[in-house]
């Protein structure tokens, strides 16, 4: 066995060891924090690429922690396949962008908390990688808690009064959501006697009557409600907007693109690996209901976004709408599974474009003190490069062709046509229209706005700036990198989708034993 066999566990050990290293050395010498973080995430990125290549060549990858392989279900198994390996890669890349952006994460006054910030940052990455790669239903809960606790810390590390309240509400909602998930897993354990996802699936399939039992149905319902709470699916979205818009920009760049998406991934994983797509598709009534809920979520998210005056809050409500896209797409239940494909692809596209937009919003907030939409006036002439990155993110959000956002909507709509869910198509198009209105209004203000940008930084008033106010390289690079990634995802949508569909079309490769 060579080191490359251990990639599934190395990918999350790297940030874990990174966090420990920051804790041991970063407290005395805060300058080591950033290099350690970048190095750890670099190792993760390398592992993610390695996993992706191996899966492409050899199919799904199982890793038996502590070597407990037989009988199935006694140990914990890590599972990488075509659904989660692209997402691992996106997590690593977005995390690196966020780390670059977060050179001075908590502002000047609290620079003593820089090591704490980076420890929590790395622990959040550990949690996200772990959630994505685990094949054990209970282990998933533990890693969800790792990422949840670190995100409460990352939100409340800011100086503002509001972020503390937002973090508290997030904590309450997040804990209740995770507990609901735990109840669901308990009910499944009660009926199947197993915690391993694949083992649960096998038991359910071999005893068909179990699917109809009250306990298993309740388990499914509670797991779904728990995950929906964590991903801010519409009626349960209350915590998201305040938490992500009042936390420090550096935290938002990591949390907003990845946290909700990880929960969407969990939902898809539970549908595919635990209950099985055949079973989910057989229950068309459930699917219809969820698609309706998704339609409501999309409509509500878009409407609420229209009503916002603050830039980041508007983006947050767009996330609520995007979550609706993905949930609805996953439940379309069309025979070609285009809806599900679109959801998985949208997971990647949305993570990158949200990253792009939040990096832009963070740049504007940090370097221009822009918080409200009206303050963006005259932005393009001040920051041409940064604004072009922002424009690409915005175009992707609207769904303009060369970007990833267009192709994900394309696949989602294709699935919806196959499934005959016209209301979902209407919601999707309507929401795209709202996005277009929103962002073109922004462009207009930023491009033609006469009033100069109000110059007050987060740290208070500064001297009058020069004409061009391009942010420093470490801020610009991730923003443009994310923009490039959005376009690359769009350009190479064909091979990516083909790769994802190897797992979705033939679920045997997912639910059966790997090599």
């Amino acid at each position, binding site marked *: 066995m060579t080191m490359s066999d251990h990639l599934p566990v190395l990918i999350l050990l790297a940030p874990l060891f990174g966090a420990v290293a920051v804790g041991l050395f970063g407290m005395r010498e805060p300058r080591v924090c950033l290099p350690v973080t970048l190095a750890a995430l670099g190792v993760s990125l390398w592992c993610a690429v390695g996993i992706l290549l191996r899966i492409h060549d050899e199919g799904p990858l199982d890793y038996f922690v502590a070597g407990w392989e037989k009988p199935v279900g006694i*140990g*914990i198994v890590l599972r990488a396949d075509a659904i989660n390996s692209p997402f691992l890669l996106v997590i690593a890349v977005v995390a690196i962008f966020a780390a670059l952006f977060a050179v001075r994460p908590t502002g000047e006054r*609290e620079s003593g908390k820089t090591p704490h910030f980076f420890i*929590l940052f790395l622990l959040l990455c550990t949690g996200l990688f772990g959630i994505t790669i685990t094949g054990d239903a209970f282990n998933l809960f533990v890693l969800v*808690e790792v990422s949840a606790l*670190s995100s409460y810390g990352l939100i409340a590390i800011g100086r503002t009064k509001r972020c503390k309240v937002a973090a508290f509400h997030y904590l309450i909602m997040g804990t209740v959501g995770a507990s609901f998930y735990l109840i669901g897993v308990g009910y499944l354990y009660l009926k199947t006697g197993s915690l391993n996802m694949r083992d649960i699936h096998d038991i359910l399939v071999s005893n068909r009557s179990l699917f109809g039992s009250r306990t298993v149905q309740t388990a499914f319902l509670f797991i779904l409600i728990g995950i929906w709470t964590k991903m801010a699916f519409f009626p349960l979205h209350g915590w998201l907007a305040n938490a992500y818009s009042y936390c420090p920009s550096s935290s938002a760049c990591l949390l907003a693109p990845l946290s909700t998406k990880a929960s969407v991934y969990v939902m898809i994983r539970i549908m595919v690996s635990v209950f099985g797509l055949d079973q989910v598709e057989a229950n068309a009534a459930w699917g219809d209901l969820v698609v309706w809920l998704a339609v409501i979520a999309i409509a509500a998210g878009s409407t609420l976004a229209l009503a916002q005056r603050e830039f980041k809050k508007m983006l947050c409500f767009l996330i609520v709408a995007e979550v609706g896209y993905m949930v609805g797409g996953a439940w379309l239940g069309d025979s070609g599974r285009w809806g599900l494909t679109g959801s998985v692809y949208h997971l990647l596209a949305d993570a990158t474009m949200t990253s792009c937009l939040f990096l832009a919003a963070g740049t504007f907030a940090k370097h221009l003190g822009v918080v409200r939409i009206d303050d963006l006036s005259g932005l393009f002439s001040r920051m041409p490069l940064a604004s072009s990155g922002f424009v690409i993110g915005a175009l992707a959000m609207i769904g303009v062709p060369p970007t990833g956002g267009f192709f994900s909507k394309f696949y989602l709509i294709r699935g919806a046509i196959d499934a005959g869910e016209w209301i979902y198509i209407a919601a999707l198009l309507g929401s795209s229209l709202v996005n277009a209105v929103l962002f073109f209004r922004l462009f207009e203000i930023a491009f033609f706005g006469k009033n100069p940008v109000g110059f007050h930084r987060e740290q208070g008033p500064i001297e009058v700036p020069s004409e061009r106010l391009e942010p420093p390289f470490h801020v610009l690079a991730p923003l443009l990198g994310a923009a490039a990634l959005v376009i690359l995802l769009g350009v190479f949508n064909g091979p990516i989708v083909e790769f994802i569909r190897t797992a979705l079309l033939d679920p045997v490769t997912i639910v059966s034993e790997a090599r």
Partner: protein
Amino acid sequence: MNAKLSATFAVVFTGAVLLYAVSDFPDFGDPRSPANHGVSGGAPSASVYYIKNAYHDTSVPNLVTAILADYRGYDTLFETVVIFTAGMAIFAILRVLRRDDSGIPAAPDPAIDGDHHRIVVGVTCRIAVPLVQIFALYVVAHGHHSPGGGFQGGVMLGASFILIALSTSLRHALGRLSETSFIRLACLGILIYAGFAFLPLVVGRNFLDYGALRALFGTDGEEMARSHGIFVVEIGIALTVTSVMFAIFANLSSRGRLHGGL
């Protein structure tokens, strides 16, 4: 009133769904239930395997310890990480760094620093603390054979420091275990656990597979190596839990200032 009404709705709905499923449960205490025995007609459940084989595999009589630190050791690693994360999050949220302290008006300290009227409490605790600590270490070490282990022992050890802080003063307790040292200790605990679990990778075995470390411990069989491995891991857990429990208390009792305190 609105909140109460909606809460009642949510609670009644959730409760009804949960109770609806209850009628379908196996009877309480049924040894043939799927969780205890396995689905009828299927393979026996994991717990049957554990009861039958854990002692052979790890030579640890306490099945809970064997599963906690070996079969599901990956869970336990992240459980320790959860504790560590909580400690770091509390520092990030609450800790007031000294430089900032001047700006905030000092609230009247409810501290009892220099209070000499509590001789009885002080003397009792002075006697009790070493006993608590010895028992905590015993709990950590004896987790193989009796209830206990790293978590329980670690919490007790942390509680003994909390007892010092309560009976004398927080400053006194921090003199025993200062801020930098408990952050270091917490990191060290994780490092012991994760680093030790990493060692089998060097010999080409899977993560956390202590059986591969036979040569390191000089034992005959893999099961004794696992038993020793579990012990090392428990020490790592205990270190992290001790320091984080005390850190949480120190921060909460002094409003993040780490002086004054209850």
